[in-house]
């Protein structure tokens, strides 16, 4: 990480700190860095910043670093941190909020984070089209967009043999209602591709 001037960062990003608090509804200012969130986090080993570092970075207004971090996408939303936090900060919800803010700000996730966003879009793409998640379409879309063409390719045949491969999507009758939900959300807040 590059060195930063903390005083300047706080002043410059005061609005960001407030925004995170309001949007996530979480008392991020209460965190006193006990580290319990990171100690219990099952995916901390794969993160660029640990959960307690993320909360400290929020307190310090390090917006740019946070929005482009891999951590906010790698977080599996298991809520172990949220359940254990002695200050009752739902850290997983803060991560989620940061992820949504990154999407809104157009910050493209890099590295491992990119694959998470691609998967989200592939999944929601099938939901918008059919009203339900279509597993085959999800994997195909995911592979095309992530460039990992043969990701899960070894699953295809065994899944088919076990009768678990649903070749055709199951489409809801109210597909227009689902399209409406996506359209309304885009109109009201953006963030959904």
């Amino acid at each position, binding site marked *: 990480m590059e060195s930063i001037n903390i005083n300047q960062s706080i002043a410059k990003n005061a609005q960001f700190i407030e925004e995170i608090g309001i949007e996530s509804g979480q008392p991020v200012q209460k965190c006193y860095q006990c580290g319990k969130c990171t100690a219990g986090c099952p995916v901390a080993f794969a993160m660029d910043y640990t959960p307690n570092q993320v909360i400290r970075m929020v307190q310090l207004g390090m917006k740019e670093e946070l929005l482009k971090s891999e951590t906010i996408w790698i977080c599996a939303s298991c809520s172990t941190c949220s359940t254990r936090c002695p200050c009752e900060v739902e850290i997983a919800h803060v991560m*989620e909020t940061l992820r949504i803010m990154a999407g809104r700000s157009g910050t493209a996730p890099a590295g491992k984070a990119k694959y*998470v966003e691609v998967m989200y879009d592939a999944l929601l793409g099938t939901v918008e089209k059919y009203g339900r998640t279509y597993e085959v379409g999800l994997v195909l879309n995911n592979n095309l967009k992530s460039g990992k063409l043969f990701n899960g390719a070894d699953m295809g045949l065994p899944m088919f043999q076990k009768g678990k491969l649903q070749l055709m999507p199951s489409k809801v009758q109210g597909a227009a209602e689902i399209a409406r939900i996506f359209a309304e959300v885009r109109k009201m807040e953006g963030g959904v591709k």
Partner: protein
Amino acid sequence: MRYAYFPGCSYHGTGKEYEASTHAVAKKLGMELVTIPDWSCCGATAAHGKSHLLNVALPARNLAIAEGMGIGEVTTGCAACYQQLANANKRMTENQEIRDKVNKVTGKEYKGTLKVKSLVEAIGSIDPEQIKAQVVKPLSGLKVAAYYGCLLVRPPEITGFDDPENPMFMDNMMKLAGAEALDWAHKTECCGASLGVSNLGIAVKMINKILKAAVEKGADCMVVACPFCHLNLDWHQKSVNKQLGTTYDMPVFYFTELLGLAMGVSPDELGLKTHFTDTQKVLSLVG
């Protein structure tokens, strides 16, 4: 017991054994599961990473339809669907402003009168004597590690029916089925969920820890209550073995499959033949 039932998108794909065994067990216990007409995706593992509003609106459509059924309680087997429905329900019943906004997005009015229960809670709350009365083939001697994962028990503000650190609902049901429920450390450790699709290299390390803990406790098998946990622990056991050089051969069941087996439902009807890790050794253990 009558429930508005939400099958979830994996119900006839990767999670089809869960669907089959759920209906078989419900029938034995006199639970009526009435499928929510034209139900749609709850937002799954993706909506919460894209938009707070979409994340509530997608499950809300189902809540609005379910409310119109006049049943009062909704249940679903999938832990992620449960979390999504329960979260939307909590946000919409507690906050009028959110409710109005979401109703405007869905174009359907949800008044906020429902109670959302996971299938684990719904079955686990039945009188133990009633469950025991249906057990005709006790799973004697079978050592089971009950794995709850994340979304079924966390965060407790949304779930709340069981202990988030040491949940017991499935353990208790396994005991009623005649099995031995193991006290083990990784009941609620995350399996990586959709990281199994997006970043398998990370997920295999998480899955490995869980399988290792179950093996060390001497488990004959594991039970789960989530199609994604099942996919990761059953199918990706092979990926763990391949990538980390392990030799796991741990059968992973839905809790409803083992309950059904103890209640005398045939393995075929329960879907026990469509697992990726061989279930035969457990079937021979319990006769």
